[in-house]
């Protein structure tokens, strides 16, 4: 059955038109990734209108290609100019740029390209193997569990995506509120329409996403008139040839870094809210900690390029696992992918892989193939991508704003979507300016309906709110939501306050409780074993801290927040 589905999915993806669109998608993603200030999410959002008229598998394959291209595009700008194209490539510049300045830009690029490829392939393998397993777990979820899962996704996104948790949570709540405008889905009553026909229809959430993300980002990029007229990057070596053979040899020697970073990337991706911007720094930090020569990091050593580039490409495999298995987007880009699925009347949920196996496998296969296309394009068109960074920002902004207008109109062929784009563009710009992260708001907009529908179902089944606290999965998500909400305080106080020494052990003990409940309720031995392992891990951490004499400095960690 699986083989049959895979063959059918190959048939869907391996058509000339789809491969051509994927190649264009990867090229577009690489260009977008290479341009500082032009995020991957923005590239994926802007691709969306083109995919409306395509069959679902073709449209999603194109979007996956943009995603894969975008993840790799950032490394070129980062290595050659020292300016990371995307936040996912920040750590790549720590060693990539010094290596290029030492006269080895070809090796640095080769390491980046092949590490990206390795990370993408490892996470693709994990995606194919883990997504169906996670979906099977997801089948146990009832409305209470789903509601709490959405709350957890919003909380962790809010806590990881900004410097101020309260602002992140406000943004998430605002996203949920925006989704309530218009007729409610359950009984069709008008909400917050204020007598306006446009508000009664509600906001098209793709127009909201494009406005919030793309429109506001462009205005942010041209805010400073002098910067807007400058080329995006005017420094850096452009004469470089990728040294493939030398890079492959270096990477083969450091396969443990590749594996560790790919796992870090994939599992960071699985976690809602924690994207490539976290994974690349985390992988770099871990590579440094595990190295025999940590003092050489930052001087231009291969390990410092391999770790972040492997992990940031592995992230999307992880984010796709959560989206395809549970219907919960792991980050803004997968939120847009989820939107694309909804446009094609496909609702991602734990039954998605079982009910739409050909579409699901075609996404897996597209992810694999896109990595090969990325490798080929990145090697062959390096000069083109670097030349793109010479374009003046205001040209890009004006053209893309024009495109936004057409793309958004194409959604439903109504003018009101264009006004939605404008209003949310203004809102997104102001939110950025006042330091509110956009990712929680976008997740709130995407997940608002799912949360409300599951709350309605939960209340319909049982009018008591106790199942939210007594059902193991619901309790599990509640506990991790609480600990993820406390994470920014932990992060800030780490190494300074005594209570931070107990944060991880207490989290382990708390999470073990619902796991033990699951083990007892379902008679599940693996979950019982996991619960015991988690308790032992918590006890071990506590013992370690006691051994070090409750030394605060010994347990200070890396800063994982976006800048």
């Amino acid at each position, binding site marked *: 059955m699986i083989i049959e589905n895979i063959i059918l999915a190959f048939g869907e993806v391996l058509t000339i038109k789809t491969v051509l669109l994927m190649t264009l998608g990867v090229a577009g993603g690489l260009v977008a990734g290479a341009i500082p200030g032009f995020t991957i999410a923005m590239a994926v959002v802007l691709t969306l209108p083109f995919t409306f*008229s395509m069959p679902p598998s073709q449209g999603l394959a194109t979007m996956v290609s943009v995603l894969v291209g975008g993840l790799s595009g950032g490394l070129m700008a980062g290595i050659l100019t020292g300016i990371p194209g995307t936040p996912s490539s920040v750590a790549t510049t720590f060693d990539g740029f010094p290596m290029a300045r030492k006269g080895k830009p070809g090796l640095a690029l080769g390491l980046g390209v092949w590490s990206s490829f390795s990370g993408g392939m490892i996470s693709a393998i994990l995606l194919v193997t883990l997504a169906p397993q996670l979906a099977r777990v997801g089948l146990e979820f009832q409305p209470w569990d789903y509601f709490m899962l959405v709350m957890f996704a919003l909380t962790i996104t809010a806590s990881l995506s900004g410097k101020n948790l309260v602002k992140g949570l406000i943004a998430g709540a605002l996203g949920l509120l925006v989704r309530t405008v218009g007729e409610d889905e359950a009984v069709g009553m008008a909400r917050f329409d204020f007598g306006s026909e446009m508000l009664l229809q509600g906001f098209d959430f793709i127009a909201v996403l494009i406005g919030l993300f793309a429109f506001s980002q462009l205005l942010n990029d041209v805010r400073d008139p002098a910067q*807007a007229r400058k080329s995006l990057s005017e420094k850096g070596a452009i004469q470089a040839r990728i040294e493939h053979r030398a890079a492959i040899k270096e990477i083969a020697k450091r396969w443990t870094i590749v594996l560790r970073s790919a796992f870090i990337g994939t599992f960071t991706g699985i976690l809602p809210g924690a994207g490539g911007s976290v994974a690349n720094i985390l992988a770099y930090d871990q590579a440094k900690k595990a190295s025999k020569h940590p003092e050489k990091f930052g001087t231009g050593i291969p390990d410092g390029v391999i770790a972040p580039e492997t992990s940031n490409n592995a992230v999307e495999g992880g984010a796709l696992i959560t989206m395809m298995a549970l219907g919960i987007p792991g980050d803004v880009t997968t939120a847009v992918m989820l939107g694309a699925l909804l446009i094609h009347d496909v609702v991602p949920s734990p039954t998605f892989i079982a009910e739409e196996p050909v579409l699901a496998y075609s996404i897996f296969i597209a992810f694999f193939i896109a990595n090969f296309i990325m490798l080929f394009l990145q090697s062959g068109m390096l000069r083109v991508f670097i030349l793109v960074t010479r374009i003046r920002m205001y040209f890009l902004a004006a053209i893309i704003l024009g495109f936004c207008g057409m793309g958004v109109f194409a959604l439903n062929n109504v003018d009101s979507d264009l006004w939605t784009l404008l209003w949310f563009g203004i809102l997104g710009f102001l939110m950025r300016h006042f330091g509110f992260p956009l990712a929680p708001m976008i997740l709130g907009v995407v997940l608002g309906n799912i949360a409300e529908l599951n709350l309605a179902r939960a209340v319909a089944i049982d009018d008591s709110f106790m199942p939210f606290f007594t059902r193991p999965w619901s309790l599990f998500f509640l506990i991790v939501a609480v600990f993820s909400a406390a994470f920014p305080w932990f992060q800030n106080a780490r190494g300074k306050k005594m209570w931070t020494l107990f944060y991880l052990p207490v989290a382990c003990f708390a999470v073990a409780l619902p796991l033990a409940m699951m083990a007892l309720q379902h008679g599940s031995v693996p979950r019982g074993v996991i619960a015991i392992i988690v308790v032992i891990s918590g006890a071990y951490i506590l013992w370690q801290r006691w051994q070090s004499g409750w030394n605060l400095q010994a347990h200070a960690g890396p800063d994982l927040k976006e800048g």
Partner: protein
Amino acid sequence: MNRMNRDAWLAVALLLFTGFMLWASFDIREPDYGVLAPSVWPRIILVIFGFLSALYLMQSLRADPESAPEGEEELPASLMGYLVYWRNPIICFGLFAAYLALLPVLGMLLDGMAFVFVLLCALGGWSLRDMAIHAAVAVISVGGMWSVFTYGLRVLMPTGMLIPGL
């Protein structure tokens, strides 16, 4: 001592917004059917939103009023300074609003070209050379995208009153 900084004013605005939306939520009709009334979910969100806004206000009041809001650059003090600081975004928003208002008159193709051209000139300069380049970029980029949507994706783009059919 004046404790009100920019974040505090923003928090007050958010609280007022919460109050207004809560008041508006009482206009939502409650049907006799269905288990979860349509006003419940928005009210839950608004209560949380209000609580968070109050928390934000307290956080802002505790912060040093002289310090710049965290993560953001210092803003100009005068109105003129503000206008200069926000010049480009104001131009973009204004031109985009004009583009939407003129859409029924010019149609998507001409309106789009005019929008991109004027925006390019407003952001990049009005010299003859610049204008020639900007015009070429506007015609090629908008014409290309319009063709992709109209002929490639079969999307019916809005036509204008000025030149019917275009």
